[in-house]
């Protein structure tokens, strides 16, 4: 079987050298090229047709995400493995959407890189373990509040009005001024609403109002 042909795209020469040392020592993989910026990465991936591109996030020219999108389009059969400092789920989410097959952190490069390359080449998805929560979230989506809960039907017109204003981020004082009632009354109403709907905090209340279509327009 032919060794896996790897292209390294990273703007730090020392890192590239380290990775090359590591990969070249493996019998089943070899480094066929190095790119120091995003443009070079796209160019070389297109011309060299590697099996896998090891992709850094922060690069001059095109950044990692742009390179990933570009390569997905230009050479869809090339697998992409992100090797980055960013342990942020938001980055991971974006790269997954861009179609990369793996995402590992540089702090674990020495221990996980080789395994990740092998897994991705086999057609698996390799995600750095502490970040896999994203996948679960994606699968479950956000906890739904649209489903029937509590005794929301029993909200009075005034309570609905207050729910709407609270969800829009008005202060109790502002709501009181608007409805010509005291701040205490607003807070009592609000406590009732939370209790009736079994909501735990403001964020849940906002999501509830959103799901009920209460945030589409200004309240009358």
């Amino acid at each position, binding site marked *: 079987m032919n060794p896996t042909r790897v292209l390294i795209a990273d703007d*730090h020469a*020392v*890192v590239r*050298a*380290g*990775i090359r*040392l*590591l990969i070249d*020592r493996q019998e089943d993989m070899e480094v066929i090229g190095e790119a120091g910026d995003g443009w070079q990465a796209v160019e070389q991936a297109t011309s060299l047709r590697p099996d896998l591109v090891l992709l850094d996030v*922060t690069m001059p020219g095109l950044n990692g995400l742009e390179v990933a999108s570009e390569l997905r389009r230009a050479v869809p059969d090339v697998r992409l493995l992100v090797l980055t*400092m*960013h*342990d*942020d*789920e*938001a*980055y991971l989410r*974006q790269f997954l959407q861009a179609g990369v097959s793996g995402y590992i952190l*540089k*702090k674990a*490069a*020495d*221990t996980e890189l080789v395994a990740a390359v092998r897994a991705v080449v086999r057609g698996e998805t390799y995600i750095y373990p502490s970040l896999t929560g994203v996948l679960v979230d994606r699968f479950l989506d956000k906890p739904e509040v649209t489903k029937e809960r509590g005794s929301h039907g029993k909200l009075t017109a005034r309570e609905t009005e207050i729910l709407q204003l609270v969800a*829009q*981020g008005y*202060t*109790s*004082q502002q709501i009181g001024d608007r409805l010509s009632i005291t*701040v205490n009354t607003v*807070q009592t109403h609000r406590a009732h609403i939370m209790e009736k709907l079994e909501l*735990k*905090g*403001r*964020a*849940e*209340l*906002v*999501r509830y109002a*959103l799901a009920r279509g209460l*945030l589409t327009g*200004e309240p009358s």
Partner: protein
Amino acid sequence: MSLRLQIVLAIAGLILVLGLAGTFHARFTLSGISEDLLEQRGNAIASDLEGHASELLLTDDIYGLYRRINSIMNSEGDMRYVVILGPNGEVKASTFAGGLPVGLREANPVPDGQASSTEILETSEGSLLDMARPVLGGEAGVIRVGLSRERVESDVASLTFRLLAITGGILLAGLLVSYGLATLLTRPLSRLADAARAVGRGDLSRKVAIESSDEVGELSAAFNAMTDQLREKEEDRRRLLAQVISAQEDERKRVARELHDEAGQALTSLMLGLKHLHETAVDDTVRARVADLRTVASDTLELMHDLSLDLRPSSLDDLGLVAALERYTKDFGRKYEINVDFHAGALRERRLPIQHEVTVYRIVQEALTNTARHASAKNISVTLDRRNGTAVVVAEDDGSGFDPSGQELSPAEARRLGIRGMEERAALLGGRVTIESRPGAGTAVFLEIPIDEDDLT
């Protein structure tokens, strides 16, 4: 005591003192003059009577004496009595029908060698001026004339009354005039005081109208000039604060990037190199040493990464506020074991200008840090949304809360300082921070920042 009251009281006091002093003086003078006149009249009557009576007494013409004293009684309205005593004190003639009142005879003795004597007698019929005049040096007897002092007294009383009435009138007029004057004088001062209070509250746009060219007008002009300078200073301070904050943010960003990229990459390559050494080394002690070094490098990398995140998360610049806050709230909840529920509404799709994003991020950071430090809360909600032309961010906890208006103890004071910082940051972008909290009922920090639709990306 208000200035107005002071002026009114001073003028009233002055009028009262002047009026009373004048009245007393006039009363004293008039009473003296009238008393003298009465005495002169009494003397004139007595001496006139002496001229006629001496002969009548010598001839012992009692009838003549009676005619004389009766005619005097009838011609002089305030004459009370005329008595003519003989040399031995016996009554020769008297206008008293039934004898002399007790004590009259003995009263007002004429000292030896004097032509007459005057004495005021207080009787049951009023105050009298008694004149005694010896006839022929007392050889022939003594003439006693009693004049009523009623007229004198009533004249003095009526003058006193009139003067007091005039004083009262002037006092009333003085009160009215001084009240008006004081009002005129103090009104611009009250307006100035109002304006000064407004300026104290931070309303530096407040001006006072200059209505006169007097001292008050001068004060108003000086006040306006002071307000202008304060406003300039405040603008300078704001500008400076904005510069400091932006410099601080730039610096944090630079250092965070440097740590994250340069130092981080160097450590990464170090670790990769050590890995290579580890795999190629033949000596076991070298391998063990390399493994140790790898741990050091790994720990340092972790530390730098955390520090960089703390200074300024790169996701804030690269991915935006929502991603950065998602990360921050998640880490925060883990660190402090507080359930943090983050909801981003309409702002999830669009990005605010970076300055706005950094401001919101820092204020949420501050609010959550306050909660962790003071509130002992179990749940925090952070919501981020757009309402009309405003970004609305609310961080609300279910913790112990506090009284946002009250004077608090030192930890709460520190908390208030945090609030001040949030307010300052928000104000730089024309936004504002509102805190709603009650002891035992949690705390909500509201941040509203106006956003321009064109600035969204």
